[in-house]
C-alpha cells in the first residue's frame, strides 16, 4: 500500500498526459469522422490522407462505424460526452445558472458525478484532471530552472482569498450580462477549446493569448499564481472540498523535519506543520518526495492540529535530550 501511495504522483502525471493526449486526439478523430462522412478519400489532400489513415488505424479496433460510433467521445473537461454520459465541470453549471438565471435540470445533473467526487476527494480536479495543470506544472519546472540560474522569478505571495472574489465577481458579471463569464478566463476550458480550434479549425484564438498571460503571471509574479490566487474553478473546488474525506496526513513519529514537502508543494501549503487546508488538491507530490514515508492518505473530514516537530528531526531530539537530563 505504501509503495502504491509513494508512486501516485507518477500515476497522476500519467493521467494528466492521457487527458491532454485525448484533447489532442479528439479533434483529429473529428476530422477523420468528417472525411469519412464525406465519402471522398480520393479527394483528400496528402496531409489529410495522413490524418485519415492514422486515425483509421487507431480507431479500427474500437469502432465498427466510425462516422457515428466516434460520436460517443466528444468534448473537453469543461463539458464532455462519454459514451452517452454527459459530464460537466461544476463551474460550468454555476456559471450557466447565473447567466441564464434559471435552472436547467438535465445540465445540472451532468455535474453530479464530478460534484460527488469533489466532496470526497476535495480539489482533486486541479491536480489530477485539469489539462492546464499539466502545462502550469511544466511552466513551474521552467521557473525552478530560471531560479537556479539566478533570475528573480515568481517570488511574490498574494492573498489566497482573491480567487473567491473572482468567483463571486464572475457570478455577478454572468448574471448581469447574461453570458457565462467563466468560460473566457477558466484555463482548462480555454485549453480544451484552443486545442480544438488549432487542430480542426483555423488556429489558436483569443483564449490562447489569455492563457499565455497566465503562464507569464506564474513566472513573473507568483508560483502557480493563477491556480492559487485567481482561478474561479479552483475557488469553487476549494469550497466544495472543504470537508473532503480523503486528505494527506503527516505521521509525526517518522517525520524528520526535512521540509522537502513544503518546497515541492506548488500551492505553497505547509505539510510540515500539518497545514493542508482546503487548498490542497491531493496531488501527492509531497508524499512522493518524503524521504521517510511520513506522509500518507487518511480518511478524515478535518486536518489534524499541528503535532509538533517530527520525531526524527533535530528539534525534537533536542527536546527529548533535555528531558532526559532532568
Amino acid at each position, binding site marked *: 500500500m505504501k509503495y502504491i501511495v509513494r508512486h501516485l504522483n507518477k500515476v497522476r502525471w500519467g493521467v494528466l498526459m492521457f487527458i491532454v493526449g485525448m484533447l489532442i486526439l479528439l479533434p483529429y478523430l473529428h476530422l477523420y469522422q468528417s472525411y469519412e462522412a464525406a465519402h471522398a478519400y480520393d479527394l483528400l489532400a496528402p496531409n489529410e490522407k495522413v490524418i485519415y489513415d492514422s486515425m483509421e488505424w487507431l480507431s479500427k479496433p474500437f469502432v465498427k462505424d466510425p462516422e457515428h460510433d466516434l460520436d460517443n467521445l*466528444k*468534448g473537453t473537461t469543461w463539458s464532455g460526452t462519454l459514451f452517452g454520459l454527459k459530464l*460537466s465541470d461544476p463551474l460550468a453549471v454555476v456559471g450557466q445558472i447565473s447567466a441564464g*438565471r434559471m435552472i436547467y435540470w438535465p445540465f445540472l445533473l451532468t455535474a453530479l458525478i464530478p460534484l460527488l467526487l469533489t466532496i470526497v476527494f476535495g480539489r482533486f480536479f486541479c491536480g489530477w484532471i485539469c489539462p492546464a495543470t499539466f502545462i502550469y506544472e511544466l511552466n513551474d519546472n521552467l521557473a525552478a530552472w530560471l531560479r537556479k540560474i539566478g533570475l528573480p522569478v515568481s517570488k511574490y505571495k498574494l492573498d489566497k482569498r482573491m480567487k473567491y472574489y473572482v468567483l463571486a465577481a464572475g457570478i*455577478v458579471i454572468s448574471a448581469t*450580462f447574461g453570458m*457565462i463569464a467563466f468560460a473566457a478566463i477558466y484555463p482548462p476550458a480555454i485549453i480544451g477549446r484552443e486545442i480544438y480550434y488549432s487542430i480542426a*479549425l483555423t488556429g489558436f484564438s483569443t483564449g490562447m493569448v489569455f492563457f499565455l498571460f497566465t503562464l507569464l503571471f506564474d513566472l513573473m509574479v507568483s508560483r502557480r499564481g493563477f491556480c492559487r490566487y485567481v482561478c474561479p474553478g479552483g475557488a469553487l473546488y476549494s469550497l466544495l472540498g472543504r470537508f473532503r474525506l480523503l486528505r494527506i496526513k503527516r505521521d509525526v513519529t517518522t517525520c524528520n523535519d526535512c521540509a522537502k514537502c513544503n518546497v515541492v508543494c506548488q500551492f505553497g501549503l505547509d505539510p510540515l506543520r500539518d497545514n493542508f487546508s482546503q487548498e490542497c488538491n491531493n496531488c501527492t507530490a509531497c508524499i512522493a518526495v518524503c524521504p521517510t514515508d511520513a506522509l500518507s492518505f487518511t480518511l478524515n473530514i478535518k486536518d489534524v492540529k499541528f503535532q509538533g516537530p517530527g520525531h526524527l528531526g533535530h528539534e525534537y531530539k533536542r527536546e527529548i535530550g533535555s528531558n532526559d537530563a532532568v
Partner: protein
Amino acid sequence: MKRRNFVKAIAATGVASLLADNVLAAKNNPSLRFVRPPGSLSEDDFISRCIRCGQCGEICPNRCIKFFSFENGVASLDTPFIIPREQACILCMKCGEVCPTGAIKTIEREMHSILDNVKMGKARVDVNLCLSYQGKTCGVCYRACPLADVAIRTGMLEQPHVLDGCVGCGLCERSCIQIPQAIRIIPDHTRKQLKG
C-alpha cells in the same frame, strides 16, 4: 494586489462594459451575416445558455460550425456560428443531441420536427442576380434544398420561390452558382431586428 484595488478593478470593468453595450453585443453589424446551429434558442437566450464547450462544432460531420472570437462582440466569444456561403448546415441534428445545456434543442431528424423547431433564418432571392430570373434556367438552389417543395419551389424557367417552410439551413446559398450569390439566408435574429 490589494483586495480594495481588486474590487475596484472588477467594478471598473463592469461599468466599462455597461457603457460599451454595443461592444458587448455588436448587434448593429449587418455585414456579419451568420446563423446559429439548427435548433438554437433565440439569440439572447442562446448566449445566456451556451457554456462555450464547443461540442457542437466537434460533432458536426460537415464541419460547418465555427466559433466566434471578438467579431460579434464580447458576449458572443467562443459561441458557435455558421456562415452558409462557406459551409452550410446539412440538418443532421447531431449538435442538438450533444449540447449539454439545451442552448441547441434536441430535435429528431424528421421533417415535421425540423420544420417546427429549426429557426435559423429564411432564404431570400435577389431577382436581379438570379440567373433564372434573367432567362437562363438554373434551379440549382431548388435541387440543393433538403426540404424541396416545402421550403422552396420553382416556377417558370426554374425561377425559385421561397416558401414559409424554409428553416434557413443555407444549402441553397452554398450551392448558388452566381457570384455573388443570388439567394441568401436572412438570419433569424436579423429578421427579428428588422421587424422591430
